């Protein structure tokens, strides 16, 4: 059977540069965890329930619920700086 040669229709992807994860905490006891509401599809309501879970099950963990400053499509250095300054860890949701 005759073989055809055709061109590949896909574009050219960029290179991937690995980025490091932050070192993890040895324990959450006494730590401050920021719960970051992505302001999308009732995310805040889910995070409030997660905040309630910590209060019920790990009362030694401090939690603070904050919202992104603007829509989730915009970077938010102001919030990141606050979390870095005053927090020990973060849970962000819901990314769909």
């Amino acid at each position, binding site marked *: *059977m*005759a*073989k*055809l*040669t*055709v*061109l*590949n*229709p*896909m*574009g*050219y*992807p960029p*290179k*991937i*540069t*690995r*980025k*490091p*994860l*932050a*070192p*993890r*905490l*040895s*324990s*959450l006891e006494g730590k401050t*965890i920021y719960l*970051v509401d992505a*302001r*999308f*599809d*009732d995310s805040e*309501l*889910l995070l*409030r*329930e*997660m905040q*309630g*879970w910590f209060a019920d*099950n790990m009362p030694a963990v401090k939690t603070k619920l904050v919202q*992104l*400053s*603007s*829509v*989730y*499509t915009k970077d938010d250095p102001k919030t*990141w*700086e606050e*979390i*870095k300054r005053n*927090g020990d*860890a*973060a*849970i*962000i*949701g*819901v*990314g*769909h």
Partner: protein
Amino acid sequence: MTLDSTYGVPTVSLHTRPFAPAVRSVIRVNGMPRARLAFVPQPVMGKTPAELRAYVDGSDTITGRPVMQEVIEGLTRPIEADDPTDMVYERTTPRLVEPDSEENLHALFQENHWSDQLPIILPTEERVAEMLAHTSHPADEVVGHMRPTMFREYWEYTVEKVAVNAVMAGARPEYFPVILALAASGASARGSTTSSAAAMVVVNGPIRNELAMNSGIGAMGPYNHATATIGRAYGLLSQNLQGGSVPGLTYLGSQGNNYAYNNVAFAENEERSPWEPFHVQHGLKAEESAVSVFTGCRSTAFTLGVRETYWREHVRNMLRGMDPHESPTFLLDPITARQFIDRGGFNTKEKLVAWVQDNARMPAGEYWDYQLIQNYIYPRATFGEEPWASKLKAAPNELIPMFRTEDIHVVVVGGETNGYWRIMGCNYQKTVSVDAWR
């Protein structure tokens, strides 16, 4: 990802189950394949506090382990010792596909999601060369960059890559400058949004007649070779040159959108329009040729004519029925365009747009309660961005404008068999010169 890698704050991100493949792909292409994740059931939207607490108390929908165990371990489990953090992965795309039979190649293109699931014209070197002969730009010139969402990486493409997709769509070589202009817009016709959006293409200028494009009867339908294949080419080049449009991975539209087969490509009926052409409104001369791209095409309202007694109420009703996060583009048959002048004195498109902006209103309480307004506009309003910040001050029953003037557009299309007209909910992106790609 930024919080974890740039600010050094250990972070876990929460997602819902259907997005697991897409999330894993996004963290991988952003260089963090071992980012810590947890997945709850879908949907979160519209659930009661008790139901959401059950999500938190329940199992991760991907791993099966308790959600809170995933969260806590995500923040405390040490980073894997073998996690390479200083590597750069080069990626590329081969120019040619492994030679094979015609039948096998058709199957391959379909299986790889390189087609729109309809038969394509195989892009042999001969066919691509014929396409390339219709532009003065060299085959290896970079045309632009596209990506399906802002969370993914931009892919790059050349004139030759656009030609490959133009051949696949069945476009004739003389259509190539129009297709290159669409590729140069950088606006993907295969944007990934759970709302299932498509694109719309309006062609203006002499190119319409050079290519025998249709702006009259059936202009937005499958009745003209140029518009059918140009619109199709725009879709194919978008999905392939941006790195894919694969359901669940790089396309998350919940219902899909049938407009996407041809991306509502048509020529404006400049000859029968009482107003200036769309591209002239955007800075080009009438004798120049251009394409204008709209994305986010999801909704269509329509009616017949512009009635004498209640035309204002009829138009307001159509606008009031739109999701205010969409923007209205009026697609008017020439009969209707003239009727708008007769009824309201709108002897320019700008006057009609001004009337629409002033009359498309809804109570502020209802406006702010729309989910898409909550997702995309309310955060910008609370951030102080206008005009939305001022709208926050309105009383719940106060009628506030739904749209900004700059988001309302008017295009004339149709063959005057009757005065039907439409409002397409979509977002204008840009107008690109076709002449620059000849």
